[in-house]
C-alpha cells in the first residue's frame, strides 16, 4: 500500500489513525501538521511529522509526492474550509496523488428533513450554520473538478464519537453533572459514526485497487435516537437515566438580540475586525465583560441547570437517518463494529477519564 497523507493529522481522526498505524503497523502514513502545537497529543510516539499548511499548496507538495491517497482532516476557521479544499486539491494534482478524500459532514443536510434524500444529492448550502454552508460549498467545488486528474471521494460522517471525542465526553459530563437534556423526548435521530468505523472507511478506500469519484454518507450500522445514545452512556456510568431532563421545544428561544448579534458576527467586516484584534484589546473586552458578570459573593447552593445551545436544540431535532448504504455496496469488504461493542469500549474510556458516578478513584486502572 502506498502511504496515506493525513493533512491536519493532529486532530481527533488523525490521532486515531496514527495510533493504529504505530501500534499495528498496517498503514503507512505521512502525517502533516502546520504547527508544533498539533504534535501535542501525538508526542508519546516520538514520530516525525511533516510540515505543511493546508492553505499553501507548495508547502504540501513535497510531503504528498509518492502518496497513494491524501485525506483532508483539517479543522479550523469555517471561512478557510473552501480555500483549504482548493489548495489541497491543487497540491494533490501537482504531486501526482491519484486520490483525495475530503472529510465533509452529514451536517450539510441539516436535520435531514427530506425523506427522499439520496447520497448523491447536492446539499442546498442554505444551512443556518456557517460550518454547514462552507462544507456544502467545498463539496460543490470538488464536484466541479470531476473531470480533473485527481479522483475525489467525499465522505460525510455524522457525529464522530469514541474515546475522548467531544460527542462522548460532553454528554457524559452533563449526565454526571445532572445538566443533560433532550428535546423532543430524545426521539430525534442521532447520526453517529464511531471513530474506528470511520477509520475502516478510509482503509477500504486506501486498499481498493480502483476508486471512482463519489460522495458517501458514512455512519454506524444502527439507527439510534438521542435517548438511545444518552441512555447507553448513562448505563456505562452507572447513572440513573431518568436524571436526564426532557425539555419541551419551547425551552429553546432565540432572542431577537441574539439573532442580531449572530447576524452581525457573521458579517465579513466583523470577522475581519476580530481577526485583526490584538490580544491586549481582547483582554480589555474580557475585563469589561467581567464587570457585568462577577460571580456571587455569598455561598450559593449549586442547582444543576442545562446550558441550552441552538446547536444542540437543532441537532436533536434531526428527522431521519441519512442513507449510508452506498459505501458498503461499492466496497463490500467493509466490516463495521457494532454499537454495543463500541459503547463497551467507550465505557472503559469513561472510567479511565473519571467520568463516572462512583466517587472512589478507579485508576490507576492497572491495579
Amino acid at each position, binding site marked *: 500500500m502506498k502511504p496515506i497523507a493525513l493533512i491536519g493529522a493532529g486532530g481527533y481522526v488523525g*490521532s486515531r489513525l496514527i*495510533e*493504529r498505524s*504505530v*501500534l*499495528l503497523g498496517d498503514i503507512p502514513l505521512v502525517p502533516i501538521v502546520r*504547527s*508544533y*502545537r498539533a*504534535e*501535542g*497529543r*501525538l*508526542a*508519546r*510516539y*516520538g*514520530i516525525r511529522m511533516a510540515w505543511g499548511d493546508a492553505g499553501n499548496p507548495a508547502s504540501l507538495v513535497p510531503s504528498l509526492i509518492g502518496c497513494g491517497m491524501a485525506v483532508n482532516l483539517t479543522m479550523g476557521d469555517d471561512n478557510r474550509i473552501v480555500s483549504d479544499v482548493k489548495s489541497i486539491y491543487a497540491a494533490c494534482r501537482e504531486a501526482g496523488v491519484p486520490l483525495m478524500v475530503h472529510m465533509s459532514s452529514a451536517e450539510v443536510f441539516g436535520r435531514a428533513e427530506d425523506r427522499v434524500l439520496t447520497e448523491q444529492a447536492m446539499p442546498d448550502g442554505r444551512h443556518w450554520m456557517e460550518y454547514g454552508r462552507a462544507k456544502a460549498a467545498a463539496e460543490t467545488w470538488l464536484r466541479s473538478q470531476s473531470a480533473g486528474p485527481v479522483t475525489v471521494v467525499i465522505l460525510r460522517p455524522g457525529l464522530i464519537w469514541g*474515546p*475522548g471525542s*467531544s460527542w462522548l*465526553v460532553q454528554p457524559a*459530563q452533563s449526565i*454526571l453533572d445532572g445538566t443533560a437534556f433532550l428535546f423532543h423526548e430524545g426521539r430525534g435521530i442521532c447520526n453517529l459514526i464511531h471513530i474506528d468505523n470511520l477509520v475502516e472507511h478510509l482503509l477500504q478506500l486506501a486498499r481498493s485497487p480502483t476508486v471512482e469519484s463519489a460522495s458517501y454518507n458514512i455512519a454506524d450500522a444502527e439507527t439510534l435516537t438521542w435517548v438511545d445514545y444518552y441512555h447507553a452512556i448513562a448505563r456505562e456510568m452507572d447513572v440513573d437515566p431518568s436524571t436526564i431532563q426532557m425539555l419541551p421545544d419551547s425551552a429553546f428561544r432565540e432572542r431577537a438580540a441574539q439573532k442580531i448579534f449572530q447576524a452581525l458576527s457573521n458579517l465579513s467586516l466583523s470577522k475581519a475586525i476580530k481577526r485583526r484584534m490584538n*490580544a*491586549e484589546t481582547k*483582554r480589555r473586552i*474580557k475585563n469589561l465583560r*467581567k464587570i457585568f458578570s462577577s*460571580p*456571587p*459573593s*455569598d*455561598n*450559593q*447552593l*449549586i442547582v444543576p441547570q442545562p446550558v441550552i445551545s441552538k446547536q444542540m436544540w437543532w441537532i436533536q431535532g434531526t428527522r431521519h437517518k441519512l442513507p449510508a448504504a452506498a459505501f458498503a455496496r461499492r466496497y463490500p469488504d467493509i466490516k463495521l463494529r457494532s454499537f454495543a461493542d463500541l459503547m463497551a*469500549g*467507550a465505557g*472503559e*474510556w469513561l472510567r*479511565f*477519564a*473519571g*467520568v*463516572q458516578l462512583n*466517587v472512589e*478513584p478507579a*485508576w*490507576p*486502572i*492497572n*491495579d
Partner: protein
Amino acid sequence: MKNLLLIGAGAVVEHNYRYPLQHLERMGVIRVLGVIDPNEGRARAISKFFKSAKPYTDCETCLGDGNYDLAVIASPPGMHASHACAALSFGCHVLCEKPLATSLYDIRRMNEAARRADRILGVAFPRRFHAGFSDVAKLIAGGGLGENMRFVYREGSAFQWNIASDAVFRREVSGGGVLIDKGVHMLDQLYWLFGGPIEVETAFDDSHFGGVETNAALRLGFPLARGSLQVSWEYALNNGLHIWGSHGEVTLNGEDMLGYRSRTSNGWVRVPAKSDWPADLEEKARKRICPSEGIDCFEAELVAMLRSILYGEPFPVTGNDAEAVLEAITKAYERMEPLDKPWLSEAEESEAHSKHWNRGGLR
C-alpha cells in the same frame, strides 16, 4: 524601579509575561532592559514591547552588559539551571518558570548558587495565586476537612499551547512530557495543601521509546492525604481536585479561580474565596488583587517577587519546594509502567506495552 532581564522569548513570555510586565512598566515599578533568546528574531520581537529593552542572543554578553535586579527565566526547562546560575552569579534575583529544572542535580546546583549569591530563587507557579485554592489550603491547615484525607486530581485537555518550538516534546530538553509540564503544577498544589515529603506509590504512563508521555497516572502519599493524580495532553478528563476528609468534602476546578465547592447537608455549595494578594509595591499595599484569569496570576506573582526583593516578604515557591516536587517526578519516571488503555484492541494494547519507554525499567 527594578531592572529586569527576560531570558527566553518564546510562547510563555508572549502569552504569560508580556502584558503583566508591560503593565508594571507603565506603573513605573520596573524597567525591562534586556531580552535574551538564541532566536534573534524572537528576542527582537519581544524587546520591542518594552521601551528600554535590548535584544540579545547570548546570556553572558547580556548579563555583562547590564545591571539587572531580577532575571525572569522562561527558556526551555533543560536550560533553566545554566541560565539561573549565570544570572545569580551576576547578582540577579531569579524568578524561574516551572519546572525549575529537569534533574535533581540541577536543582541542587541552582539552590546552592542562590545561597552563595544571597539572592532569592523563586519558582513561577501562578496557581499559587488562585484564591479558591488558597482558601482550601487555609481550610486544611485549620483542620476544617479533618483527618485521613483522600483526593483525586485530574486535569486533561488536548494540547493547546501555541508553542514556538518542539522543545516541550523532547525528553532531553524538557525532562519528560505532560507529567513534568502540566503535572508539576498539580504536584506543587498538592504539596502546598498536604505537605511533604511526597511518596510515589505507583506510576503509569503511555510514552513509547523516543517520545514523551501524553497521559500519566500516579498514586501518591503525602503526610496529610493519599490519593491519585491523572494528567493528559490528549483527552478532556473529569477535571478538578476532589478532597474527602473526615469533616468535609470539597472540590476545586481551575476554571473557577474565585471559589470552591463544599458539600453540605443541602447539597453542593459554591463558596466564594476570600484570599487576595498585594497589587502594588507600597510597603503597606494600597491595592490588592484576587485574580480571575491566568494572566492576572502572573502579574500577582511578579509583584510578589518584587515585594520579596524589596521587603523580604516570603515568596510562595522557593527552590527547596521545587526540589521536593521534582523528587516525586523523578521517582515517578524511574518506576513508570505502561498505562492500561482497555478500550484499545488486545493487539494494540499489547504492542503499546511492548513499546513502552521504560520497559523492564531499562531506559
